[in-house]
């Protein structure tokens, strides 16, 4: 039977892993390759690595880093961060990544998503959408690590990305990020209802029950989380963790 994926999302700042709250206050978590080894041992479904400084610094996620992850990871993994060229995508996939994650470029040049999808297959192209309400309460998608608003509303943009051939959409709520109080279920559901491609929920997960809700009430095909898999306890001690088989089967 199909089981929705549960995906740790790991943010990279220079050489280390960090975790944010509402896309701010990045706290150092640890070494990324060490995290991969731990997630291997714990049988994680899939991993996502996002280089959150890349676009702002006008560079892209390090190919050398992707190779090191590729050498270590026993499960599929995707990477994102300043990816803007077909040739780089080719190198990233050759280095062992299953998929590339496009964010800023997808808004600036939607047809690039189509180019990538045509070249490598839609299942290798994931678009991630960061969502926040602006000062007037309007829900918009943001780029450049959540610093710049676009003109797109998340549902309209998701439809456009599906049209352009994206294989999957990661929906991230900036306001829920790092709060561990649950996903923005309404946002996830509206996007899951709008597109026929898989939607991955991200932003706000704090418990196994949140993961279950994203699927049962949000119709997400997969659930992703950052804080939940790097923190433990009310004082947020750093501990890489992942649900075991028993916990998984209790919710799915």
């Amino acid at each position, binding site marked *: 039977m199909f089981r929705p994926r549960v995906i740790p999302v790991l943010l990279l700042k220079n050489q280390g892993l960090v975790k944010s709250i509402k896309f701010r206050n990045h706290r150092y978590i640890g070494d990324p390759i060490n995290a991969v080894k731990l997630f291997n041992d714990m049988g994680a479904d899939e991993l996502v690595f996002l280089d959150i400084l890349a676009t702002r610094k006008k560079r892209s996620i390090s190919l050398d880093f992707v190779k090191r992850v590729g050498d270590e990871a026993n499960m*599929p993994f995707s990477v994102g961060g300043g990816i803007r060229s077909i040739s780089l995508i080719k190198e990233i996939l*050759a280095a*062992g990544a299953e998929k590339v994650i496009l964010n800023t470029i997808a808004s600036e040049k939607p047809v690039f998503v189509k180019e990538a999808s045509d070249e490598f297959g839609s*299942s290798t192209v994931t678009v991630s959408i960061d969502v926040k309400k602006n000062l007037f309460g309007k829900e918009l998608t943001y780029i450049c690590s959540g610093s710049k608003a676009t003109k797109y509303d998340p549902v309209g943009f998701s439809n456009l990305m599906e049209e352009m051939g994206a*294989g*999957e959409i990661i929906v991230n709520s900036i306001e829920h990020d790092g709060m561990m109080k649950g996903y923005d279920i309404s946002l996830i559901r509206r996007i899951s209802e709008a597109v026929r491609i*898989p939607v991955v929920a991200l932003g706000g997960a704090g418990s196994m029950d949140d993961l279950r809700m994203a699927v049962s009430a949000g119709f997400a095909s997969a659930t992703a989380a950052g804080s939940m898999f790097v923190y433990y306890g009310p004082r947020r001690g750093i501990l890489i963790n992942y649900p075991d088989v028993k916990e998984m089967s209790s919710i799915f």
Partner: protein
Amino acid sequence: MRVIIVDYGMGNLRSVEKKVNKTGNNVIITNDIAKIKTADKLILPGVGHFRIAVENLHKQHLTDALNETVLIKKRHILGICLGMQLMASQSEEGDCNGLDWFDADVVRFSISNQLKFKVPQMGWNTLKLEKDSPLFRDIPNEAMYYFVHSYYMKCNSKKDILTTTEYEETFTSSIQKGNIFGTQFHPEKSHEWGEKLLGNFINL
């Protein structure tokens, strides 16, 4: 023993190579026809578009080499994902012919509950063994494997079906006919049981 991963320009070759190495076996990645013709075992990976894959095989003169090694010399071959689909007669994707090693058509998922079952199927799923096979030796029934695909192979001959899987409908998740094997899922991405399956294939 010479194990070769066929490089026709598509597919996550490095991941397959690494996983095969983890089983304790050496493997080379190549599109060299002479090497392919003298291989003991072949792995045919694949990610991407069916028609482009077929064109690449033809352009690099690999189709004949594969036919000779697999159909005449009867060497074991494992097709993975698109690599398995290429073994069919034809595919809806790109509307063209495959290697025609199996009497089968590659068709797109036709889902009625589109809210619950998105396409591509991306994630972990189980298999139901339809016939015995050394490929699954010492692997438990509840083992899960990673799938990522929008198309699947519809076998016209039931005895070619090795395992089936449920994704709203029941579809063929792996095939076997004599020395020819194929998995729709990615054993190189499927943790320990994927590694075991690859090891089983090499030890056939």
